[in-house]
């Protein structure tokens, strides 16, 4: 008999006979694959094809010249005098806000005289004499303006109106372009350029031209291949994507448990058939292939459905991912979601791979069974008991492995060993579960009866009796719960840490910032006179002006900031890693060329207190001593902080990015606010009280972690579905048993209760194991994985209410999932069932 015929009869037919169970198993794979595919697609769209939005209008340049804090204009004069046919494109790059479109878009200042961008110029659409007026900006077609339109633009705290001079029809995305002269005035650049793009002449290699340019530049300026900034940002985003990806694989792992369960059930159910087949001469390989094939079918079907579902998931995930990227990392616009062949193949590979891998062990076992033994019932379960001790031993070894792995450092900035440790921990718990469950079930049996009656006893016994299946179910559900609990604990701890940190850090009464939305790499500024006038108010005790610049350090984006160290020393309670007194550190900050750095910066660049940072600022190399490292949770890129007066020496722009206002002690908040109001007349400034600033920060925090919660929810959903499927299988399997119960006088309701009690117990065991495992996983997340990927010190904290809520919900879902199987069991016709045998 050909294999496929055998496969059809042994494997496919039974699947068809139980469509609900088959569908559930395939659906578990589908959801797992959907999450992986969805996150991959959304990740690709949000960051995978990431191009810094400031790279617009920079097509096909070969090299770029940059300097921290901007390039002095004379650099361009020197470069253009070089006796080679370079073509230079000087640029100023910033962001502006379009209130009419509710959008922050890049504003690119270019040399309209020497390198006018391409646009559609239809003669006659406006008088040529109007075309080069100071109030002209050009827009990309995507913004939907046409030549001659008026366009309102918010820059920092100032709303201005411009005339649309032309449409950049070939420019994708959303961008405003204007001449350097206008940009210089609006963004207070004092002539400084952000970048000079270079087109090289032919005749020499790009490396030679690069070298030649470098020798012509001042020491503070650097030459790089065009697009390096995009590459840097991609590198920075890589860690974020990694963690996202890992989270998405949790769902797949949970799915694996369920496939394992399904195939195990399949094997146990067909032991007799396997025995007969083997007795008739089927080889072990044929049996093995049969069951592996079954799994592959689940995998393939699941994967195909999963890819389609993933495409849908991606569409909703992309917004969440993009907003996280925006608030934590870099300004970018997500591309549209596109299903690529690579991702589709990844999905299929993942689906089949996970299914086959998780089926290997039961399939192997089926193929090993001696024909005679297999034909006899009941021994399969017996052997599991003997293995409990072995399982505990394996669990111990794996846990020890996890312990060792957690001690290892990051690999290439990625916490690979941390992930390994997490996997090992999950595996350890999977091995330990049979022993745990048998103990739990045995001890539960006694008090279950006392508390809930004979149905509960039967349920507990039933679970203990089919220990293997119970273990797998508990394993799947507890893994999902553990992941959820771990991430919940991590995020909760992080949140609490941030709350405490803000209490220390935010001491001022009012905070002002321009209405133009800022971001990790965008620091719009307030007009300097706003701060000066507020400082002069009688109600105000002090004003701390803070200025931030987005810079690059060590090939990575970072933030250079400066505040008034005297004021920070007087009011702030910034916590330093060394435990030093803030007053003393700030004192030194004002008197020397020195900086303090944030913890993520220190970790990312391996810098510690006492080191010297050499940082070229505005074309001059500056040496800065690191006084101390401070705790900071506001930026993943990392901060270098100077005293304001020191930074002004190098970058003499007095405009602050935001200001903190300390009111005099006898001035109530509302009066202070009223006093400030007239100063802000005609400007677009956001005034936040201390409390509303904190609330806003937490809102951003929660939004950032929304995607994490969403992924957890999917994993739990898969697990709960798995429980439903497994219970259904259980019911079908134990038809005879339920038939007997009914025969012996059990009511339908009692049968239903048995199933519900089983589900309740399963949920209880899974929660117990899940919380335990989750606790250890959360330690890994907080102290290994987070620390290595992001460099934040998080204080451990139990988010009791969130956990209780989530776990109860899972518990409720588990029991609810048992309703259908319970109904099926209750409706079994006892006569028919007993007849079958």
């Amino acid at each position, binding site marked *: 008999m050909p294999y496929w015929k055998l496969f059809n009869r042994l494997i496919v037919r039974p699947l068809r006979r139980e469509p609900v169970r088959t569908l559930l198993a395939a659906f578990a794979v589908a959801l797992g694959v959907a999450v992986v595919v969805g996150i991959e697609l959304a990740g690709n769209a949000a960051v995978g094809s990431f191009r810094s939005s400031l790279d617009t209008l920079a097509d096909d340049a070969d090299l770029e010249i940059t300097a921290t804090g901007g390039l002095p204009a004379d650099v*361009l004069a020197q470069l253009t*005098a070089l006796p080679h046919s370079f073509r230079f494109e000087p640029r100023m790059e910033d962001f502006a806000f379009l209130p009419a479109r509710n959008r922050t878009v890049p504003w690119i200042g270019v040399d309209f005289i020497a390198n006018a961008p391409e646009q559609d110029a239809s003669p006659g659409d406006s008088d040529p004499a109007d075309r080069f007026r100071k109030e002209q900006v050009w827009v990309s077609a995507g913004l939907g303006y046409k030549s001659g339109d008026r366009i309102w633009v918010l820059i920092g705290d100032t709303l201005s109106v411009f005339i649309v001079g032309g449409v950049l029809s070939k420019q994708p995305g959303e961008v405003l372009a204007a001449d350097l002269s206008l940009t210089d005035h609006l963004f207070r650049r004092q*002539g400084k350029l952000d970048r000079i793009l270079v087109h090289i002449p*032919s005749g020499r290699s790009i490396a030679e031209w690069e070298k030649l340019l470098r020798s012509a530049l001042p020491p503070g300026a650097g030459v790089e291949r065009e697009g390096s900034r995009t590459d840097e940002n991609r590198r920075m985003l890589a860690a974020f994507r990694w963690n996202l990806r890992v989270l998405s694989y949790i769902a797949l792992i949970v799915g694996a448990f369920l496939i394992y369960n399904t195939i195990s059930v399949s094997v146990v159910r067909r032991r007799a058939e396997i025995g007969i087949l083997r007795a008739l001469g089927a080889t072990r390989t044929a049996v093995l292939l049969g069951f592996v094939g079954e799994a592959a079918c689940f995998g393939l079907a699941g994967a195909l459905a999963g890819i389609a579902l993933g495409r849908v998931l991606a569409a909703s995930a992309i917004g969440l991912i993009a907003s996280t990227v925006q608030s934590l990392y870099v300004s970018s616009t997500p591309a549209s979601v596109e299903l690529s062949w690579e991702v589709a193949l990844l999905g299929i590979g993942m689906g089949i791979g996970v299914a086959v891998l998780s089926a290997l062990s039961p399939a192997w076992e089926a193929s090993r069974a001696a024909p005679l033994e297999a034909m006899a019932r009941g021994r399969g379960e017996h052997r599991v008991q003997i293995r409990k001790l072995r399982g505990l031993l394996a669990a111990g070894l794996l846990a020890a492995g996890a312990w060792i792995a957690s001690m290892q450092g990051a690999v290439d900035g990625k916490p690979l060993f941390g992930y390994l440790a997490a996997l090992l921990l999950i595996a350890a718990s999977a091995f330990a579960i049979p022993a745990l469950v048998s103990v739990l079930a045995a001890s539960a049996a006694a008090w279950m009866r006392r508390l809930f009656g004979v149905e509960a006893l039967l349920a507990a016994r039933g679970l203990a009796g089919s220990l293997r299946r119970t273990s797998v179910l508990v394993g799947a559900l507890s893994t999902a719960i553990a992941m959820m609990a771990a991430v919940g604990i991590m995020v909760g701890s992080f949140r609490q840490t941030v709350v405490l940190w803000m209490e220390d850090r935010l001491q001022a009464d009012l905070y002002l910032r321009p209405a133009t939305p800022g971001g990790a790499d965008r620091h719009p500024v307030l007009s300097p006179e706003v701060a000066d006038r507020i400082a002069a108010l009688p109600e105000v005790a002090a004003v701390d002006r803070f200025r931030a610049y987005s810079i690059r350090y060590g090939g990575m984006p970072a933030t250079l900031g400066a505040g008034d160290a005297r004021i920070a020393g007087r009011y702030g309670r910034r916590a330093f890693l060394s435990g030093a007194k803030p007053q003393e550190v700030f004192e030194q900050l004002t008197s020397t060329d020195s900086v303090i750095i944030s913890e993520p910066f220190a970790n990312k660049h391996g810098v510690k207190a006492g080191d010297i940072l050499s940082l070229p600022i505005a074309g001059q190399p500056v040496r800065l001593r690191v006084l101390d490292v401070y705790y900071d949770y506001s930026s993943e890129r990392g901060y270098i902080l100077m005293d304001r007066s020191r930074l002004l020496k190098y970058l003499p722009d007095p405009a602050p990015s935001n200001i903190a206002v300390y009111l005099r002690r006898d001035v109530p908040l509302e009066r202070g606010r009223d006093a400030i109001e007239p100063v802000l007349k005609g400007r677009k400034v956001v005034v936040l009280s201390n409390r509303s600033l904190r609330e806003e920060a937490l809102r951003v925090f929660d939004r950032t972690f929304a995607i994490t919660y969403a992924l957890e929810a999917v994993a739990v959903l898969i697990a709960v579905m798995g429980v439903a499927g497994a219970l259904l299988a259980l019911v079908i399997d134990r038809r005879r048993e339920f038939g007997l119960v009914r025969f012996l006088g059990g009511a339908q309701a009692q049968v239903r209760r048995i199933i519900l009690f089983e589900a309740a117990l399963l949920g209880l065991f899974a929660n117990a194991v899940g919380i335990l495992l989750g606790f250890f996983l959360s330690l890994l997340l907080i102290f290994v994985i987070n620390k290595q990927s992001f460099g934040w010190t998080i204080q451990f904290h139990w988010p009791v209410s969130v956990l209780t809520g989530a776990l109860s919900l899972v518990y409720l879902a588990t029991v609810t999932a048992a309703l259908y199987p319970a109904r099926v069991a209750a409706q079994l016709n006892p006569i028919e069932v007993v007849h079958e045998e």
Partner: protein
Amino acid sequence: MKSSRVLALLLLALISQGAGSDWRVALPGYRYSFPRDYFSHPEFRTEWWYYTGNLQTQSGRCFGFELTFFRHAAGFTEPESVWDVRDVWLAHLALSDIDGGRFFHVERINRSGPGIAGASLKTARVWNGNWQVRWVLDAARPAAFTRQSLEAVSEQFRVHLSLESKKPPVVHGKDGVSQKAEGRGRASHYISLTRLEASGSIAIGGEEFKVEGLAWMDHEFFTHQLAPGQTGWDWLSLQLEDGTDLMLFRLRREDGSIGPYSAGTFVDAVGKTKHLALSRLSLVPEGDVWRSQKTGARYPVAWSISIPELGLAARVRTRLPQQELTSRHSGVGAYWEGAVEITGTRNGRPLHGRGYLEMTGYAAPVKLRAD
């Protein structure tokens, strides 16, 4: 080439701005002072420096070159930001490989910015990016501005010449102004260095030629020049074997007539000048026409000259008809500017020479009007 049109419009807009401001106009009685007047006059709207010349290698291979710097004021106010556009600087660079039958030309446009383009007495140079003319000062005679170094680099070719002035600067026209039309200030201040001994090198692709020859510098600054109805001009600079030089120009009008202020200047071997009014010269096209494929313009590339009081009768011919420069900037438009040869007689004796011919307004009327 959409961007080119944008630029054209842009430049036009720049050029047409600021009319009615307090621009100084070219008036009689202007007191020239050198070296000051070799450099920039920002109080006038438009200013240009033309360097042209005929060069040859030792083996006799002939080349012509042109390097032109234009300044056009966009506004009268002094810039606050280094990037504010006070002047737009346009430059043209052309090389005529006469024996190779090739003509190259490039243009660039810049603002002064942090020193990308300009004309400065302080640094004694006129430049636009890496195209520049630098005066080489003699430590012993700092006031003597006689030597210049001209350097220009393009993707296809480069020119590097040392120029030594053999005659003092010539002021064209009468009483310090070269009148172009009827009316106060419809004129320019126009000076030339008519005999610059040139030596240096030319490179085309990887091929380098050692060259020498004669170059000519024109420097003109003005606020209003052409009057309405004037469409272009034909201009000639001739350097003759007997050591004399001649500049002639003819202003054309819409109706095909010749403007009455067309004129010329004769410079004798020691540098003494003679103003030649239209009535004392004849400059007429001979009928040979070269038609540009690019612009459709028909340029009269052969001319005959007659100046009875000098006893001069000559014909001007070019060996390379395609010396047309097409600008992306409508303010300039397309024009023909190229190396020419002259053959004729002076008082009955045969006379030869070389020079440059410029013909504007054939593709479209020149729009260099300020009002």
